[in-house]
């Protein structure tokens, strides 16, 4: 493990100045404090209130007031794939508000009254967690598709093994050679074989 001090500044801190941050909070003292602190940190801040139905430009992070008046944040852009990372700003801590915060998909929370201290850490932690989560999701998606492709190839191999009475190794060689000749992936050839087999068995053609 490297000692603190020898470690260079993390990227999450370095890119604070280029961060596009949206603040969705009523225009009151807390809203102003939050905006000013984000500006001090050096983020590119834009304030919105009331909540817009659409976001016309991309943001990295959004601070959203979860208060009794806006508990149900039913805005289409919040649930979209490339929605900004959300930080809830709460003034109550009862289950109704906590539920609102969960439904928002918040990665972090700050409580009112807003103090300058803590905004930076919350911002960084929210980005780290949301970033990690996004990466994990991508990895899971990749693994899932890999798994699916393996299953496809296994199915295709058994189709070939049954119809041509060949070994598993030979079946794989047939698929691989076809993929090379046709310049497509092994998975695509496997899919084609499985699909063809399904159609043939559906129309009642018995090849053996």
């Amino acid at each position: 493990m490297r000692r603190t001090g020898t470690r260079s500044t993390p990227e999450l801190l370095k890119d604070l100045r280029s961060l596009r941050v949206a603040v969705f909070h009523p225009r009151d003292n807390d809203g102003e404090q939050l905006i000013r602190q984000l500006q001090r940190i050096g983020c590119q801040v834009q304030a919105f209130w009331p909540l817009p139905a659409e976001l016309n430009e991309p943001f990295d992070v959004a601070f959203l007031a979860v208060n009794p008046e806006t508990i149900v944040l039913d805005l289409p852009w919040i649930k979209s794939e490339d929605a900004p990372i959300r930080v809830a700003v709460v003034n109550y801590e009862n289950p109704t508000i906590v539920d609102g915060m969960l439904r928002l998909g918040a990665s972090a929370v700050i409580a009112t009254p807003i103090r300058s201290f803590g905004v930076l850490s919350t911002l960084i932690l929210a980005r780290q967690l949301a970033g990690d989560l996004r990466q994990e999701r991508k990895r899971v998606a990749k693994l899932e598709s890999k798994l699916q492709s393996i299953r496809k190839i296994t199915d295709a191999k058994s189709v070939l093994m049954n119809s041509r009475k060949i070994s598993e190794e030979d079946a794989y060689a047939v698929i691989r050679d076809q993929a090379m000749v046709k310049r497509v992936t092994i998975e695509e050839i496997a899919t084609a074989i499985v699909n063809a087999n399904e159609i043939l068995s559906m129309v009642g053609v018995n090849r053996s």
Partner: protein
Amino acid sequence: MLFSNTGVTAPIERTQLSGTLFAIHEVNAAGGINGRELVPVLYDPQSDAVQYASLAERLILNDDVNVIFGCYMSSTRKAVLPIVEKWNRLLFYPTIYEGFEFSNNVIYTGAAPNQNSVQLADFMTLNFGSRVYLVGSNYIYPFESNRIMTDLVEQRNGKTVGKRYLPLTAGYEEFTSVVSDIRKQQPDFIFSTVVGESTQHLYRAYAEAGLNPKEMPIASLTTCEAEIKAMGAEYAAGHYTAAPYFQSIDSDTNRRVLDLYKEFMGGEVVTNMCWEAAYFQVHMFANAMRQSGTDQVEALLPELLGAEFQAPQGRVRIDPATHHTCLYPRIGRANSKGQFTIVREAKRPVHPDPYLVTYSLGDWTTQIDTLDL
């Protein structure tokens, strides 16, 4: 003192102000605090949270006030909270609210949900059934109370057949549309968390529609003697409210305090749970200050936490861990005189549990005794 004399919640807050002034009068008549007179400084925050915050700061900075009595709606308490924390002062809050809060600078003397919602849900579902229609004012207390009520009726295999939120300023017409929906849905009972002046519109619209409280009563945590006086006893009769205090409590302390209050007001009086909390919290403060000799929060708190007082509802105690108060849940049915006939009451105080998320019906700590009717 921060109680509204104008605005949507003025009628109930005026009773809190009156209870506070009455208690101060009693303290002063008994020689004040170690010979010093209590002098109230009052402002009217007009039921507006922004006013509450600025007037709280004015009390502290201009009037040199260390202890504030006041607030009714949660939004107004939330506005004052950062101010008393910032200047390290003490707020006494004499109102039922939705829980999930603690501040070292606040003493809570009204009921938390485990001291009224559970008992009300238990009583209503056992006596009327578990299909409930929820109607409330559009703010945090009704949202949270309805969440708890929904959980509780589900435990009795019931369900919510309707849910409506209306603005605090809603008029009679808006309630007639709610009542016609209620008639259509035919719930076993209606749970109302409507507060302020619009309360009377709900009960009136209900009566005008010819609905029968014996079959489909309204159950409330906030409709007390003050609201009944505003609407007229005939509209409230037969409906239910859960509260730690009703004017009709038949105890020596309550009778004695009511007699003195009549003398103080110079005639007949109508009291309620918020009046009572406002009344006893001043006495608890005075007792604490007699011990500490100062009204600095650091000196008062050790005397207040764990302190007991013989209040009109029974012997109450401030829980040191939560700063909330051990209270006596009761269920009352409004009668033709504008008072409540108490149908159930706790013989022992129920400990406050402001951070309780999941309630269960039939829990022994929330059991209250059925009285002979």
